[in-house]
């Protein structure tokens, strides 16, 4: 199935990446090339095959529900583009 310019715009919006209009056609071609190459997977018989989601057979381990690292907001916010009094400063989202 071909990826057209509208699909690229939609996917870029979903991925929250601004792609300039002049890049859209080229991207559609690139992604089409890659997806066409990927289409060969259709040749593989996967009837009755369970998807492999983890190569680690072990079950998920449980741990005690306690705070292990925390209580240090200055460290948490030390890389923030903007912070005040150990809070992240983010743009206004509710008018």
């Amino acid at each position: 199935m071909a990826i057209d310019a509208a699909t690229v715009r939609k996917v870029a919006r979903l991925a929250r990446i601004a792609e300039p209009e002049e890049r859209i056609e080229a991207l559609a071609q690139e992604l089409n090339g890659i997806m066409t190459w990927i289409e060969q997977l259709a040749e593989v018989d996967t009837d009755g095959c369970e998807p492999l989601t983890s190569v680690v057979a072990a079950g998920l381990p449980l741990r005690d529900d306690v705070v292990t690292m925390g209580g240090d907001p200055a460290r948490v916010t030390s890389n923030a583009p903007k912070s005040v009094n150990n809070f992240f400063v983010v743009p206004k989202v509710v008018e």
Partner: protein
Amino acid sequence: MSLTKLTLASALDGLAKREFTSVELTQAHIEAVEAARGLNAYILETPDKALDMAAKSDARRALGEAGPLEGAPLGVKDLFCTEGVRTTACSKILETFVPTYESTVTSQLWRDGAVMLGKLNLDQFAMGSSNETSYFGPVTNPWRSAGSNKALTPGGSSGGSAAAVAADLCLGATATDTGGSIRQPAAFTGTVGIKPTYGRCSRWGVVAFASSLDQAGPIAKTVEDAALLLTSMSGHDPKDSTSLDIPVPDFTQFVGKSVKGLKIGIPKEYRVDNMPAEIEKLWQDGIAWLKDAGCEIVDISLPHTKYALPAYYIVAPAEASSNLARYDGMRYGLREDGANLTEIYEHTRAAGFGDEVKRRILIGTYVLSAGYYDAYYLKALKVRRRIAEDFDNAWAQCDAILTPTAPSAAFGLGENSNDPIAMYLNDVFTVTTNLAGLPGLSLPAGLDANGLPLGLQIIGKPLDEATVFSVAGAVEKAAGFTAKAEMWW
């Protein structure tokens, strides 16, 4: 002999015998790193930290408290978070990021006495096979074709790690491997690299690319050095729920062990079109060496091999699109302006990610989007099981598998950068073990007609790094590979 020419094992021996101090050894490496800036292997040098760590190491040794890697200067791929030392994943979006925590793997190296020389270049977010997607520019391979000045790629994504080890700019380096990012650069630079079984090394504090495939491992000068480093890097970590809670053996004890009676599988599907005859010949040499060492050679079939890369290019981008959603410009990293919140996200990510990273995020978003999830993502996970079943079947016939590491020797910088699929094909022999979670090791086994190194890969059963190291030791001994890149930098 210059101290930088030593292997890790011989340097540890020299330190133990008090032939030199860690400060002297570290100083020699700091000078080598400064002299090799043209290679662009290190994107951040930390000489003051290195000398401080070395002095403390010498003090510990004087007190009789030497750890297994006491005083050894190492390089760290800039995908491992290092406390108080900038960690970028070679991206613009993390250009100024300074972690307030240390990755588990590097903390274990420091626990065992190692010294950090600095942070090593890589493909941006480990996405690439030539180091050309790095925001800080590509690494140049210390190796050149005979009679040529052309700049070659060291491979990727761990190109800085591989180049630094090959050029004697550290005694060993950390690296990571999602589709071949330890083994292909090792093959391109005449070094040894191992990706262990998925779950051997903690992923905590390693910048995530594709979490079900990412594994840390070392790049080193010899098989023994790789075993030393992997022993230190491995082990259970409660902070990574996929890290395996099983004992870690001292992997060095398996290097040099007899391989007599082992069955070595040769998969017929690991011959690709246009593979240089020299690689086929090297493979045959490897088979002959292991026969001489007493192994039994078995022809095996891994019929779904050709589908591994296309499956990988669904699974890895899908996981990447999810993992990289965290880069939103709010809590850390770059933030660009915009008229509203969505625009801020979109502008931040457009400016902060390179083209290859964006390409993979877009593919990942596409294959996970409504209407395509079953056709692509679920299909790829089913093919992934078929690939894992291929190996399960093979283990009924053999104890380890021998293959070439990469379908070519190192190529020129810029030669494949306009064709994503040609670039992806670099990982055709390595990506299968990531999908199946198996250990894979690359070691240098010969030179091509241009004098460039070529690697052989040994694949093992899950958690059987022991056999992988034994077989690698036997191949290393028989190959007698001692060539080094001639110093031109």
